[in-house]
């Protein structure tokens, strides 16, 4: 077990190196000279030279790369160009709000999607199945933007059921007052695609021989579905949830932006708008590292649900 974890961590090094090179390449060559961006409209060659020296972009590439790697290792990406806040401080303060919204969102969505998917998979081919599936397709085809705009306008702005936007101080207040509408919108948006996807997982399992065996043994339909089929279908479902995790961390930025939740996602958008390279670089690298760690955890989880997986 420990040997497996060690080796897996060892194997992620080439990937991590690739990510570092990719980010470095993007921001150093493709991005052009950041000094011009920073200096903005009021610039003379002297100022630009100054900024270049401060940023270190006048040095050779390999030196810059080395500095970048040092930054990653120490976690010290310096300060935001826009606000002069320490990048590490931005991370520390923005992670909490993001997780407050995302963890309940993911949990509620996954549970609902599993239940709905199992139901429609069981009655596959029926009218219910077709209606739910077409409903999911239509629901999925509407942009997440529209859901957010309309829900915010109707439920919060017009009906006043929820605060339109904002964020408070205490965890309970944030979770029960400010996060409710964002979570509802998030669940509605992800429920349709997840139900469709999980349905295919269940359908794959329902046609397996062991399901026929379970029926031939006289097991009740409920037991066949909830014990025999679910345990097998949970393997791809866990994969899917784990794949979504890192994406959610940065990907729920639209929700965070609209509801003014001071999370990582909103920070990413602000940074992109302001060309705040240190923040974007740091987020990209650390989310990539988080992804690799989550993948490792996913592999360990497989061992729990699928005895065939041998951790070698």
């Amino acid at each position, binding site marked *: 077990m420990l040997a497996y974890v060690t*080796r897996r961590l*060892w*194997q992620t090094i080439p990937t991590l190196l690739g990510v570092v090179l990719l980010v470095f390449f993007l921001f150093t060559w493709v991005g052009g000279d950041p000094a011009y961006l920073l200096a903005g409209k009021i610039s003379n060659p002297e100022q630009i030279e100054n900024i270049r020296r401060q940023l270190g972009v006048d040095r050779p590439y390999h030196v810059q790369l080395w500095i970048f790697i040092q930054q990653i290792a120490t976690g010290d990406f310096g300060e935001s160009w826009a606000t002069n806040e320490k990048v590490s401080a931005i991370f520390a303060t923005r992670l909490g709000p993001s997780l407050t919204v995302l963890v309940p969102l993911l949990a509620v969505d996954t549970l609902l999607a599993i239940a709905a998917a199992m139901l429609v998979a069981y009655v*596959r*081919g029926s009218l219910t199945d077709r209606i739910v599936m077409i409903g999911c397709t239509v629901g999925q085809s509407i942009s997440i933007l529209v859901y957010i705009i309309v829900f915010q306008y109707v439920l919060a702005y017009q009906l006043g059921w929820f605060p339109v936007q904002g964020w408070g101080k205490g965890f309970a207040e944030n979770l029960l007052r400010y996060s409710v509408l964002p979570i509802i919108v998030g669940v509605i948006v992800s429920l349709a695609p997840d139900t469709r996807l999980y349905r295919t997982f269940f359908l794959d399992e329902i046609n*397996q*021989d*062991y399901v*026929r*065996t*379970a*029926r*031939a*043994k*006289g*097991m*009740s*339909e409920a037991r066949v579905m909830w014990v*025999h089929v679910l*345990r*097998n279908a949970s*393997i791809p479902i866990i994969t899917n949830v784990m794949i979504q995790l890192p994406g959610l961390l940065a990907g729920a930025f639209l929700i965070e932006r609209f509801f003014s939740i001071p999370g990582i996602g909103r920070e990413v958008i602000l940074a992109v708008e302001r060309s705040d390279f240190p923040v974007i670089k740091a987020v990209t690298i650390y989310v990539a590292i988080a992804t690799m760690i989550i993948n490792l955890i996913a592999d360990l989880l497989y061992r729990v*649900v*699928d*005895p*065939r997986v041998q951790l*070698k």
Partner: protein
Amino acid sequence: MTAVNSSGTLIAIRDLKVDFRLDRTTVTQAVKGISFDIPVNSTVALVGESGSGKSVTALAILGLLPKENSTVPPGSRILYGGRNLLALAPGELQKLRGADISMIFQEPMSSLNPVFTIGFQITEVLTKHLGMTGRQARVRALELLREVGIPEPEAKIDAYPFQLSGGQQQRAMIAIAIACEPKLLIADEPTTALDVTIQKQILELIAALQKRLRMSVLFITHDLALVGEIADYVVVMREGEIKEQGRVEQIFEAPQDAYTRALLLCRPQLERRPRRLPVIDDFLKPGPLAGSTLEERSRGLRGDEEIILEVRHLGKSFYSREGLFGKREFKAVKNVSFKLARGKTLGIVGESGSGKTTVALTLLRLRGESSGEALFDGKDLLSIPQTEMMPYKRRIQIVFQNPYASLNPRFTIGQLLMEPLQVHRIGSSESERRDRVYKLLEEVGLPEVSFFKYPHEFSGGQRQRIAIARCLTMKPDVLICDEAVSALDVSIQAQVLNLLQDLQDEHHMSYIFISHDLAVVKYMADQVMVMNEGEVVEVANSDDIYRNPQHPYTKKLLSSIPQGWRGARAR
């Protein structure tokens, strides 16, 4: 639950029909109104080729037909203890399944739930039907595992299915099925996926359990030879209808129906080797069988034949990655040597994992690096560079097992057969090549129009003919048949074997005939090579090896062949 008719009939099937809906407009009748009885304490064999409706009948008894696309028209009845199983409420049927009537299937690996332990899957039945507590059920499960002959039951009870061998998996399935001492055990091709030595053990186990538990067995199989050993009654089905039913001795000694007779004689037998195998049409048309099916063919080498291929010390290893830099070596083939005479057939027999297929693929260099040498016309096929390989490639060809996988589904038959001619620049013009292909189609018994058709429009036997024709385009000296008839029904098998024999007689090709089926190899081969775990166990002329096997493994293999009907036995 225990209402057994005093007349001795456990289950009576009356006018059973099953319809399958293929799409919105097409409905096929899989079972067309059949009736038969399953008497108490006896074994009934349901025999038929693919598409005969035998498995569908079995599933209908347990109410396990797929609900989405199958219907049982009214009027069909399956009577058990005075009740019609087809009209039973789902809850009632559930109580019967696994308790009174249980079932085992063809593929034990996929029939067991992969993520639960064997113990869990046995105790589940015991707690459900017998109301046992977890502790009681576990004790009983251990007993059951011992009863079905699984070694070290204390360890195996907590094992997952993938940790057991195929034979052990089927034993575990049987343990689940007999857990509640059912009145009827339905066995749907329970040994088809298993090696012949394992097959024998499983058959013996089922027979012993049938006697001890005094249950009835409905044994479904495509192989009449199996039936002779275990059945009391035989029901022969074809295309959804019963062709003939009766006591086993009557079926084997005095078959009334032409189809039954055909099934009995199409399959090669160990004690006879006719010049041609009789095929189903020979029986369906009136008149005596053709002379060629009665004459004997003699096989074997005298020792002075011209040798076309000589393989010396062939070895092949596969490597799996282990750890960061480590490799683990698996020797699939170890030190195999043999000689192939021109115009003769070398049979290779062995169980799964014996390395027989690897030998063939290695000779064709379809499997990468290998050791040893294969001298063909004095050239070592294994060491000449890829660039010089082309002229040799066309002289050794191969026919694969699965006729559904070996033809590119996106090519027409014409494209499939023209491709080798184009690649090797055989024939001077397209029209000359086309004429050649038409002639070949005729030779393998396919109509000219096949040229424009796609593989999916042909049956398994026809596809195998196409695969053979593709090899013939290059006029090879050596043809390797890798389980070439194993996926085919018995009646089709005979036709393809006859074709292969005709082609050999005409073109004087040498065959390497690989099969797990000892009877087929005996029929086809001059010389037989027995392989086990990558090594050659024994090589000899085919008549000698069957009459007088030397190696213990060969003896074990031969004694496992189903003997068919051996006259009245003491039961």
